[in-house]
């Protein structure tokens, strides 16, 4: 399809550890539209990072992609040679990570690290690369850019480092930016600044973004569509409005229920985390991974994996309750938890 920059089809990734095969991503499919922001949400350990690392093919041992296709502009990245992949990383697809403190190399100057993708992917001179790096730092609103290039990462604050990481990712004008929890390690004020920056940059440069987060507030702010992951599988995929107003999966509803709500003049904060713990991915349950924690679970949920139910054109959900044979169709009842 022309409008999709990235299409993931039935991606499965496992870690082959001494204890056995950890199924970190199971049969995940989604696509990212050109110029749009796709959010991936889910509790930690649900397979979001591994999905992203699989797209870049930078999984560390003992992780391996065991199945599926990763179509970037129609070409399967899984079939590319290492050399071809290297030419794509940091150039067509780039990535920023959760912890800006440890994601920069402490013994190299910021300027050195910023120019690296440019020197790797273009035939620019070191001097011009430095000039471009200074522009990039200004783009991510780091003042005094030229001087900052000579600094070391430890002289930057967390927020500034994440800005520098973003600048680094933007160096070669990528078509797709994968941001893996870019704000999780930052304080609240800095978080919203970084999100604002990402959304400004998207507007200015027009690239597509995959934004991984477990913060639904961030999703509401900048995402166009959302993938909800749990226990290494996709539970629900929908446009952002549908996620907030027409969620169909009990897990999505649970997530929505666990965000603090501020209404009108009286601050009414309500926070209800979903009880229970995520499944063991060494031996994932045969049925729906969420079934043991699901308040609406039926017998079939623990026995057979749920099927995809298409709610509308671009809204799908994986839940037995949505099956036509389910008692008192969940959909017809509306959202019992939220309402």
């Amino acid at each position, binding site marked *: 399809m022309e409008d999709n920059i990235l299409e993931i089809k039935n991606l499965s990734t496992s870690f082959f550890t001494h204890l056995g095969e950890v199924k970190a991503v199971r049969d995940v499919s989604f696509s990212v539209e050109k110029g749009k922001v796709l959010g991936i949400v889910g509790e930690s350990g649900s397979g979001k990072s591994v999905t992203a690392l699989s797209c870049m093919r930078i999984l560390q041992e003992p992780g391996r992609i065991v199945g599926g296709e990763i179509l970037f502009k129609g070409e399967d990245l899984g079939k590319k040679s290492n050399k071809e992949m290297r030419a794509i*990383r940091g150039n067509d697809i780039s990535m920023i990570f959760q912890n800006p403190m440890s994601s920069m*190399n*402490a013994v190299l100057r910021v300027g050195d690290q910023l120019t690296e993708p440019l020197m790797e992917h273009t035939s620019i001179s070191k001097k011009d690369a430095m000039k471009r790096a200074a522009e990039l730092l200004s783009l991510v609103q780091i003042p005094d850019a030229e001087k900052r290039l000579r600094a070391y990462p430890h002289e930057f604050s967390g927020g500034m480092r994440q800005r520098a990481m973003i600048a680094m990712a933007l160096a070669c004008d990528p078509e797709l930016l994968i941001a893996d929890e870019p704000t999780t390690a930052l304080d609240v004020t800095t978080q919203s600044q970084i999100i604002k920056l990402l959304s400004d940059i998207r507007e200015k440069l027009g690239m597509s973004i995959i934004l991984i987060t477990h913060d639904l507030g961030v999703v509401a702010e900048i995402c166009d569509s959302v993938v909800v992951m749990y226990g290494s599988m996709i539970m629900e995929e929908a446009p952002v409005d549908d996620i907030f107003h027409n969620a169909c999966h009990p897990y999505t509803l649970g997530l929505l229920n666990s965000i603090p709500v501020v209404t009108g003049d009286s601050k009414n904060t309500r926070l209800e985390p979903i009880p229970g713990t995520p499944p063991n991915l060494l031996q994932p349950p045969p049925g729906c991974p969420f079934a043991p924690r699901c308040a609406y679970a039926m017998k079939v949920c623990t026995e057979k994996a749920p099927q995809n139910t298409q709610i509308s054109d671009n809204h799908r959900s994986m839940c037995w309750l949505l099956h036509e044979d389910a008692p008192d169709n969940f959909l017809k009842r509306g959202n019992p938890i939220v309402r």
Partner: protein
Amino acid sequence: MLKYIIQRLLAMIVTLFMIATITFFLMHAVPGGPFASEQKVPPEVQKALEDKYHLNDPVIKQYFDYMSGLIRFDLGPSFKFKGVTVNSLIQRGFPVSAKLGIFSVLAILVLGIPLGVIAALKHNKWQDTCVRFTATIGITVPSFVIATVLLYIFALKLRILPSFGIETWKGYVLPVAALSGYSVSFVARLTRSSLLEVFRQDYMRTARAKGLGESKILIKHGLKNALIPIVTVLGPLIAGLLTGSFVIESIFAIPGMGGYFVNAISNRDYTVIMGITVFYAAFLLIMIFIVDLIYGLLDPRIKLGK
């Protein structure tokens, strides 16, 4: 920076002074003296000898006499080698030991570090197993055993290398192998574990995500970080190698510092013990200082002098 260097130099002088003082009094606290063991010497002669070297002065006076010499870099005469000063003893012995040591240091750099890198790159493959196995032997087996085995194989059985003396380059092979076996193994193992640790770091993933090649990631992002813990141990290791090993030097009949030192201790050759101790300590302090300077160059988070 200059202020830091001056501070460090002053601290080194104070440390040296304290080492000299402690060694001096400990040495004198041990019963016996340089001339006590020579039973054939009549008591008058022994007394005369002791007088000549001021050994019958109060210890405190001897101490001040010695220290005033030390300040002028005069380490005094040897009691046992008649007419030889400690300075000339060190001048004679140190270059021999140091030459052996320099080859051993080279062995660390061209064998120890690369072997560690290979082992880390081939983690859990046969190359890694080989390096780990050899390094464990190098660390656990004492140098004199290594020396003996090497001598047996290469000098006695194969007859391709001489068993003693350092007249030709061939003579260096076995003593250097025996002397550096431990250090090379230790550095190889440290390099391996340090690199494996670095491979797990987030910045390595960042480098990979930029599309850099594996060798560039390893050299530019990996090695510089992995070297930091290695440099720390390199200082004392190098100091130890350059100042010689009595065992190796006596097995291979090499006239280095180590031999002088051990003889001096059994003979209570006070000035030689003192001289070599102070020299060794000064050398070690200088090496540690150099290591700290390199450390500061490698790791910008370390601010020297703060």
